[in-house]
């Protein structure tokens, strides 16, 4: 429902996972498999020489410091900023506006999501089937979508719960004169378990 970019989540996990897999496997192979061990040993001197040559060639003026190190530092800082932005990007997408429409040439009508939330909760909260309800609005593909989550009492048929909420949503359609896309989320949870069983009707 929220606008979390799930593809980047998976991409980050995949890249880090592959990296750890390759590094771990390489380290284990280097000490366990004789052939790998020998080639690794042969390459050691060469790699060290190459890297120290690079560090020599990339002197920063006459300070005696290679610019490779500051470059790595800048890269690390950029990566940290990108990662912080990545974390902050999670779970967003709530909106306070349920409906925005140009009703005339001179103005726009805006229905805040609070109106819709209160209307729906008024209709749902009295029902004995539910212990709790929560209504919020999200933007999905730049369309406001209502999310109505209800917590059922033990033993309530999910179909009945869905029908009750749907009826409230249809009433809201009539009230607003517009149909808003809606998600109904029916859950049980701990509070449902400690509350009493519903009576059969």
């Amino acid at each position, binding site marked *: 429902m929220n606008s979390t970019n799930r593809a980047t*989540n998976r991409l980050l996990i995949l890249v880090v996972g592959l990296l750890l897999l390759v590094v771990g496997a390489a380290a284990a192979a280097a000490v366990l498999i004789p052939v790998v061990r020998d080639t690794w040993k042969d390459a050691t001197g060469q790699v060290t020489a190459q890297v120290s040559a690079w560090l020599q060639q990339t002197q920063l003026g006459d300070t005696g410091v290679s610019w490779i190190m500051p470059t790595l530092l800048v890269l690390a800082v950029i990566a940290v900023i990108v990662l912080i932005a990545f974390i902050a990007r999670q779970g967003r997408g709530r909106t306070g506006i349920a409906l925005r429409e140009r009703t005339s040439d001179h103005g726009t009508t805006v229905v805040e999501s609070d109106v819709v939330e209160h209307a729906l909760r008024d209709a749902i909260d009295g029902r004995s089937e539910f212990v709790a309800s929560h209504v919020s609005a999200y933007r999905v593909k730049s369309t406001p979508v209502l999310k109505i989550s209800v917590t059922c009492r033990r033993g309530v048929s*999910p179909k009945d719960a869905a029908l009750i909420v749907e009826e409230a*949503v249809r009433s809201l359609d009539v009230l607003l004169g517009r149909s808003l896309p809606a998600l109904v989320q029916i859950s049980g949870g701990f509070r449902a378990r400690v509350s009493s069983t519903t009576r059969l009707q």
Partner: protein
Amino acid sequence: MSTALTDPVADARPASSATTPTAPSSGGFTPPRGVYRRIARRETHSPRSMPAIVLAVALILVLAWIGTEIVIDLLGAPALLVAPVDMFTSAVNLVEAPAGIVAAAGIVVAVIGLALVVVAVSPGRRARHLIQSSRTVVVVDNEVIASALARHASLAGDVDPDNATVSVSHRRADVQLTPTSGIPVDPAVVKEDVARQLESYGLKPGVGARVRVAQTGRIGA
């Protein structure tokens, strides 16, 4: 507000059909294209936010540490833990280190990496089902389905509700009944009732029922 919602026809203004193609209170509501499909997909699958955030925080810590070491090294002060040059040389001379420790650490790291790859590629289904509906997207926790089935199974089998255990997975509902001693339970009746309930819910994907009745009853239940 509540009165208006409980009586939908009371003061319904006729919808100005000029701006909305979908007339309210008609059965077939058509949302903007792809919106409902996207919601249904996202509500039944894990966003993988938790592992991604944990990894991002770990990466930030590691990068911050390496960055600090680089700064300290550039200033010529002694390193916090390991100087950058030592990081490089010890990585290159890995084979000289004690083989047992390196092998064990390498294998542990590789297994963690493999687990992360699996987490990244697997679908990550949540324990939820969709209920068919014309107006909204309805997602229901398997827990709720199980609880409703348990009530019906205990009624059909004439056992105490506490002696009916139901677990609902992606495609199957497992009903387990412990009969009260001396009162036989007909599994066929229970199964029929549970199957009828499941059918009436219209779950997506469909769920099949399996009923098991315990061989030994329980006294005083």
